[in-house]
């Protein structure tokens, strides 16, 4: 392990971390602008031109608020909760390939992926399944009935939708034959995107992604009409900020995962022609830009849905998860398996 390798990875991690935070920050701004657009309003427009400094003002406000820890709260776990939420939101980005490897003039190949483990898809799945702990621990440690109810809802929702998500991934793995995200992306070169082979699987995956990130219409853990504020009722100051922030980072990461697994990652039609035109240093960067365009499209979709579809009732949520999505996901796995067997035979 030479020193340039360590520096390379360190810089990459720092860049990805910074980008996730900035995107999460500006997602809060985008969310309010999108909401305003959909409701025929103007949205925030006071701080800076077009209100572009609004996230900074919000962040400053969060820092300046008084820090309150309830008397009967479990002090340590109360502090661990938001930290855990942020941690699990951030570590998912480690296995996503952000672009095809850059070949420098000196002949050095720099991969734009922090690590390529051969169980990358399962790693993402594991991080997703851990993400509920931040909410559960925070909700329980607050020592508040509403927070506790919210934590319990979050846990049952997370467990229920994980099953359908796992089954939709199995169908995808039948198509790709590998769990390494790098190989999955390379397989989708040009326009051979997995969504063309697994449209139903993608639909299941995106529904589950909405549920796992606690976004509307599945935002029952923070259903204010029933639970005051949800799991973060007792939180104030930057701890509350961490919870809100973690939701936006989760949204960014799940958008990146969907773009990578189903929409070809950094691949786009005509990329070979572009490569011959601009050379091997610029072309991967264009691919990265394409990936981010896909991610932003997904983030916009998340927001569009939030301001369009009302929240589910709790029993409807469970009905959809267990009695609709899981049977469809199992049928999808079986049909995919049969089709692959027939194609291989002939």
């Amino acid at each position: 392990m030479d020193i340039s390798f360590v520096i390379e990875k360190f810089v990459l991690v720092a860049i990805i971390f910074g980008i996730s935070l900035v995107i999460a920050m500006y997602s809060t701004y985008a969310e309010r602008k999108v909401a305003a657009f959909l409701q025929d309003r103007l949205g925030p427009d006071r701080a800076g031109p077009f209100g572009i400094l609004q996230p900074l003002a919000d962040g400053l406000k969060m820092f300046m608020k008084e820090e309150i820890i309830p008397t009967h709260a479990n002090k340590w776990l109360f502090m661990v909760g938001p930290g855990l939420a942020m941690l699990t939101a951030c570590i998912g980005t480690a296995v996503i390939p952000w672009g095809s490897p850059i070949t420098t003039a000196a002949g050095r190949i720099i991969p734009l992926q922090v690590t390529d483990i051969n169980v990358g898809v399962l790693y993402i799945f594991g991080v997703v399944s851990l993400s509920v702990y931040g909410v559960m621990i925070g909700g329980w440690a607050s020592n508040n009935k509403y927070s506790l109810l919210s934590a319990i809802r979050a846990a049952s929702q997370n467990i229920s939708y994980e099953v359908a998500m796992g089954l939709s991934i199995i169908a995808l793995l039948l198509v790709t034959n590998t769990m390494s995200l790098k190989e999955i992306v390379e397989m989708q070169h040009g326009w051979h995107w997995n969504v063309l082979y697994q449209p139903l699987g993608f639909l299941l995956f995106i529904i589950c992604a909405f549920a796992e990130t606690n976004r509307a219409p599945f935002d029952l853990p923070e259903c204010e009409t029933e639970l005051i504020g949800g799991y973060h009722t007792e939180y104030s100051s930057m701890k509350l900020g961490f919870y809100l922030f973690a939701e936006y980072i989760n949204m960014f990461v799940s958008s990146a995962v969907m773009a990578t697994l189903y929409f070809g990652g950094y691949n786009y039609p005509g990329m070979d022609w572009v490569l011959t035109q601009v050379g091997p240093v610029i072309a991967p960067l264009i691919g990265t830009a394409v990936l981010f365009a896909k991610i932003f499209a997904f983030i916009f979709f998340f927001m569009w849905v939030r301001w369009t579809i009302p929240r589910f009732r709790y029993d409807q949520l469970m009905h959809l998860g267990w009695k609709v999505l899981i049977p469809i996901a199992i049928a999808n796995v079986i049909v995919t398996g049969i089709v692959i067997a027939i194609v291989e035979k002939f």
Partner: protein
Amino acid sequence: MGTSVFYLVAFLSIFFSLMVIFAKNPVHSVLYLIVTFFTFTVHYILLNAQFLAVVNFIVYMGAIMVLFLFVLMLLNLNKENEPLKSGLVKVVGIVAGCCLVVTLIGSLKATAVSDPLVLQNPNLGLVKNLGKELFGPFMLPFELSSILLLTAMVGAVLLTKKEKV
């Protein structure tokens, strides 16, 4: 390097397992158990069993422990002032503990330092090889254990059903 990492992780596993038992609050116990499972995941990675590591991560840490926490939070057992156990239970506990100590000392006396573990095939833990092993030579036991799990699940569902059928 490898050995020292192993001893560090092994120490952490034992430490957190003990914390599971010694924690008074059941929710804290479950949280320590989650950390214990995480150290097991690290053990699997040290053995180059990446698939088992991730599955342990997903199934035990991500699913089973969430259900444990879920049940504990639902029952809200976080009372510090649990009624003390009666004297008889304490005596029984002491006797059982002494028996365990005697057994442990006896078994420790009989043990010798084992040969260092050599992995016969270091790549066995990778997904492709493990899958080929499971669905090749071990096909029947694998399917039988799946049926066993399915039976247990159906039984659990039946138990929770109201008397209707």
